[in-house]
């Protein structure tokens, strides 16, 4: 403990100390140093109908190194999923989140597992942030038993109820009223918790969103609507889809905040602010200005509606993982080598999980008929040829 404090205050102490510390760091890559560090967010927040949270954020080495590791893990996971999809081990739809990691990680840092999260189909990293494992992710993507939905859901239907993660939804916009319903239930049960309902700039124009927002505002529900604005709804740029792309203002009577979604500390600050607001005053909208490097899904190259220059530009200027790397290095919280070692570690974790998932069996045929109902009442169900395949639902 004393050693790490020495490190953070004067990293220029002798080479021997440095090599000793790096030896220790290899075995304990996450620093346990919780000495507060003050950082400013990349840009100030912009608000609509509410006060602006401070752009000065408190953090510490432990938190920043955890952020780095978590985001590096998510990044690696999504890129590995890309390869698996091209190898045809993942089928159907696969919507990747690389570029947007700061939203999932920053949000999680601001809340507890008592708070609920619901999102759309770009859900792999949100699931990990809520405590899901890499094996559960890869096994589900490959349709195996060890998947978080036992192989029956697929990429768009990850859930983790014990961490209050409610999916994983394929119908654009549907998750927003569902999220307001979760908030309703939290208020009904007096749980003193909030729900984050995430949606994209494409979903922001859905009518049901405004219906749910109206009811949430009328009933003061602790609902936080988070628009992950990656500027493209599939292939349609925001300015072609929304008359007013200022999504944080679209709530009209509902306050909103615009946040740099590529800055994990800004995300954390905004979510902390939003949680406090929602518990006292009802719904609030957070617009996360973020970016996805991949196309909408694996079937979309992502370059027909935006330029490669734009993509590389964001990667150079705003990448969330790089931002934290620079922050860690500039504050001497770890060395470049330590960070690279962390990345190697997470890469190995991802590779190990994939190997394990590949060995995992596909669901048993009987699983075709399980979970149709929570209480099947002994009812009959049928396969394609009902004279051949029948089952009794338990």
């Amino acid at each position: 403990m004393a050693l790490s404090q020495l490190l953070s205050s004067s990293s220029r102490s002798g080479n021997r100390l440095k090599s000793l510390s790096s030896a220790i760091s290899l075995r304990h890559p996450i620093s346990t140093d919780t000495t507060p560090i003050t950082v400013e967010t990349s840009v100030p927040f912009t608000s609509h109908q509410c006060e602006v949270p401070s752009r000065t954020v408190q953090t510490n080495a432990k938190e920043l190194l955890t952020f780095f590791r978590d985001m590096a893990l998510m990044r690696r996971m999504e890129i590995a999923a890309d390869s698996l999809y091209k190898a045809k081990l993942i089928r159907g739809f696969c919507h990747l989140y690389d570029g947007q990691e700061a939203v999932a990680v920053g949000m999680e840092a601001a809340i507890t597992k008592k708070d609920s999260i619901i999102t759309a189909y770009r859900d792999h990293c949100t699931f990990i942030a809520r405590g899901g494992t890499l094996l559960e992710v890869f096994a589900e993507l490959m349709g195996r038993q060890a998947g978080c939905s036992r192989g029956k859901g697929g990429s768009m239907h990850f859930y983790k109820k014990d961490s209050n993660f409610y999916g994983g939804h394929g119908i654009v916009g549907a998750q927003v009223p569902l999220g307001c319903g979760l908030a309703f239930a939290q208020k009904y049960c007096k749980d003193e918790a909030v729900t984050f309902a995430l949606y994209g700039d494409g979903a922001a124009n859905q009518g049901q969103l405004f219906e749910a927002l109206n009811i949430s505002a009328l009933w003061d529900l602790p609902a936080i609507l988070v628009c992950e604005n990656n500027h493209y709804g599939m292939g349609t740029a925001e300015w072609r889809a929304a008359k007013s792309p200022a999504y944080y203002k679209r709530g009209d009577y509902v306050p909103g905040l615009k946040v740099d979604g590529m800055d994990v500390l800004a995300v954390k600050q905004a979510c902390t602010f939003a949680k406090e607001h929602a518990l006292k005053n009802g719904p609030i909208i957070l617009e996360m200005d973020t970016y996805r490097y991949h196309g909408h899904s694996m079937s979309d190259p992502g370059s027909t509606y935006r330029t490669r220059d734009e993509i590389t530009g964001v990667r150079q200027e705003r990448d969330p993982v790089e931002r934290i790397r620079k922050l860690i290095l500039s504050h001497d919280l770890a060395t470049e080598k330590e960070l690279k070692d962390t990345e190697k570690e997470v890469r190995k974790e991802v590779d190990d999980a994939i190997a394990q998932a590949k060995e995992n069996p596909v669901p048993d045929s009987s699983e075709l008929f399980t979970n149709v109902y929570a209480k099947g009442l002994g009812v009959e169900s049928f396969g394609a040829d009902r004279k051949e395949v029948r089952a009794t639902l338990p």
Partner: protein
Amino acid sequence: MLGIVRQKMLEQSLKKIRPAVAVLRSYSSAAKQMNVREALNSALNEEMSADSKVFLIGEEVGEYQGAYKITKGLLDKYGTERVLDTPITEAGFAGIAVGAAYYGLKPVVEFMTFNFSMQAIDHIINSAAKSNYMSAGQISVPIVFRGPNGAAAGVGAQHSQCYAAWYATCPGLKVLTPYNSEDARGLLKAAIRDPDPVVFLENELLYGESFPISNEVLDSSFCLPIGKAKIERKGKHVTIAAYSKMVGYSLKAAEILEKDGIDAEVINLRSIRPLDRSTINDSVRKTNRLVTVEEAFPQHGVGAEICACVVEESFAYLDAPVERIAGADVPMPYAANLERMAVPQVEDIVRAAKRACYRSVP
């Protein structure tokens, strides 16, 4: 002393059945009677009393006492936290209710009529029905969607459709169609207690109809099994399978048929999904002839499913082709004479039964 104790015990038991007693007072007949509206209201009341997770949500369910007065008195009793008036935004409030069910509450969503459920159908099918399966059992959805379904009187094309076949297609949903007050009480209580999404299809024209009701049905623990049809009238010459209002018409048809020496067995389906295929098939194996009756559009309907299942399971037992009586294959007209032609009448059921019995030229 004993007399006082006995008096007190009598008072206690009277207090428990007071709602039913109030009902009894309004009817002068000796047999206990209850109309469907009161049956539904009492079921909601009892289930809300028994389980604090049950809440009501819908348009006009609270202060207006319910568009059809089904939720009368419940706002006063349970307050604004448990009886929620919504704006006219079906997609929004149905989605909110499903989300609340994900969390573990037990919403009872009222659609003013099921025609309006189409605005929320994505939440019923994709958010509610399929969630337990997609999540491999993590997210169950203990929700009830209830309201009047099918034709009323003179309400025209957009307010008269029957949705039984649409919802019954979907695995993961349970679809119930009560006919009388016993059905209304028993099935609604079962639906609210059931951990799966239930679509509960009532009928506006039945709300005011009174039916005899036993003490067993009035008990607060009374519940009917989901997925079991009821033989309303035993017979041996022809099976008539119907649901909701058409059960009443089928019973009237059976009385007429009896005069012509045809003894009809009338099945009250009660449950469209799960469909009680074994009761239907057992009946057809006994009578060898089948007429299906529904108010809904004929194509891809409940009658078609019943016919298919009987042909698959009991083909050798059929002595005549299956007859299908359904609503006319047109949007519901307004003019009274055309409307009458657009819904099945008792004489249609009689005629079809006679055809099935070869008593008239097909």
